[in-house]
């Protein structure tokens, strides 16, 4: 059995990655999550300059999920290179840098600033953050705008470029096609949904910015549907995420057409989840006679049309 995933000639040793935003720069989880078994680590979104993030409170809990409104708080490109990358590189795990910005040039600046650094496997282009006024989802909401951005970034690197898509759209397939036509090597889906929780005693939203990013087990079917739709619209690998809190959830994504998955906010509850998801996927593959990750998608029994 070989469950590795190859994108633009580079390999992820197994399909289980940790999503951007929940893992910081990995060092934070060093004592509670086995790091070297991971198939990939997607870093906290990096912007050219440090960002302190959105006003507090930034979190709210829902049934079977949570809202976050972090606002891309991160150390910025220079501090990432000098303070965070050395540890990440030392792990021997593929490091995918999540790239974000307010304008097109921000994305370009982060990629150009990292091209001379060794130990970066690839980039995940974040065009789907719902928590910032400028950039983020504004690049990922219109196929034409997304296409222009990826065309600008594509010549800057030979490393794999994964475009992370938002579910907050009428037609995710159209966006996936636009990204792939512009040169994206893979797609990841989904980023958080837009959500809101109101405190009925204080009569105000629980999160300061009002609308925030909704994640957790509640959104699993939304993510699986997005991956299923994308897998039938494009031919590049798709990395599935959204609501995974067990190996069975991860297998749903693989059957829907994903080549790899990312674990997001469920890691907060169970820091050992990546290991149990990986073992669960391997055992399921063995039981069903799957030798590669593509065998999952081909095994889906479904005769309907889209």
């Amino acid at each position, binding site marked *: 059995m070989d469950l590795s995933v190859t994108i633009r000639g580079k390999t992820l040793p197994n399909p289980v990655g940790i999503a951007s*935003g*929940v*893992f*910081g*720069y990995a060092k*934070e*989880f060093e*004592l*509670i999550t086995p790091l070297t078994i991971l198939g990939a680590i997607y870093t*906290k979104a990096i912007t050219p300059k440090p960002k*302190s*993030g959105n*006003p*507090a*409170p*930034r*979190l*709210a*809990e*829902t*049934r*079977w*999920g*949570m809202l*976050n409104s*972090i606002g891309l*708080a991160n150390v910025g490109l220079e501090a990432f290179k000098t303070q965070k990358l050395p540890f990440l590189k030392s792990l021997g795990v593929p490091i995918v840098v999540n790239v974000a910005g307010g304008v097109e040039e921000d994305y370009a600046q982060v990629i150009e600033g990292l091209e001379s650094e060794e130990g970066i496997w690839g980039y995940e282009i974040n065009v789907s953050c719902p928590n910032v006024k400028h950039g983020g989802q504004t690049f990922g909401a219109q196929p034409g705008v997304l296409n222009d951005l990826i065309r600008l970034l594509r010549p800057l690197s030979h490393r794999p470029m994964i475009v992370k898509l938002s579910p907050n759209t009428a037609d995710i397939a159209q966006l996936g096609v636009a990204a792939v036509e512009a040169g994206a090597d893979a797609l990841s889906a989904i980023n958080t949904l837009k959500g809101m929780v109101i405190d009925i005693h204080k009569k105000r939203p629980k999160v*300061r910015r009002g609308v925030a990013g909704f994640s*957790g*087990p509640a959104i699993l079917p939304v993510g699986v549907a997005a991956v299923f739709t994308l897998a039938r619209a494009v031919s590049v690998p798709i990395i599935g995420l959204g609501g995974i809190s067990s190996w069975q959830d991860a297998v749903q994504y693989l059957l829907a057409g994903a080549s790899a998955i990312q674990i997001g*906010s*469920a*890691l*907060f*509850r*169970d*820091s*050992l989840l990546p290991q149990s998801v990986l073992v669960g996927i391997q055992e399921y593959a063995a039981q069903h006679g799957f030798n590669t990750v593509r065998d999952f998608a081909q095994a889906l029994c479904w005769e309907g049309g889209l």
Partner: protein
Amino acid sequence: MRRFFTPLLASTVVSEAYTELKFSWPNDLRRPLPGQFLSLGINSQPEVFLRRPFSLSGWDEAKRHVSILVQARGPASEALCRMRPGEELDVLGPRGFPFPYTHSGPKQAAYLLVGGGIGIGPLLFAAQYLREKGEHVILCLGFREPWMIPLLSFPRDIVVHLSCEFGPLSPQIHQGKVLELVKQVFHDVPIQEIWGCGPPGMLKALATMSQQNQLPCYVLMEEMMACAVGACMGCAVAVRDEREYLRACTEGPVFDASLVDWEKRWI
């Protein structure tokens, strides 16, 4: 810090509002300090998505037992209060910077510890700790209603003042806000430092009072958390310097009250 699973040793109802949970502290971890917290996984309740932070409320040096105080007010805390001895706790910790204490020799001036509601937990631990260090401790503990007031036993040399906002009271309990007690203590006794934990409005007022009296004041900010290990940036506390936001789980949960930007804190 690490994650460990340990059986609950004792669950004690200390008032109609609060339950104390006690369990063993792993031998490989250093003794925790007042102000530090644990993040508990509520594994019996799958719809409770996030772990919950709890300040440590006590430490038994001889037995290496720790305790936390829980107020049942939602599915997570209710599940914890229902737990019976022998059932397993999923613990991550200890986390966070404790209340800053440097022994500076015997002093007459007291440490004034101010707790509101469930915020009394870390101050009970702090009182115990400061007494071990030979400091003079005054505890002011405030509650909303009489049925919340816990049965507490203290060494006789810890001065305890209680307040309660509503309901019939004994003559020993001040009717009103805990800050009124604090004002009285300021007037009566020399104080060297204030430590506080409770609702944000109380902490903000405490910060103002300490500033007016030119006393150092440290507050434990009980923010909502997701990861509890410094990764997610969710538990942000606005501060007055160029850092703008600090993480309650990592740079806190104890903050110098004069550093906190209270105008930006939603009360």
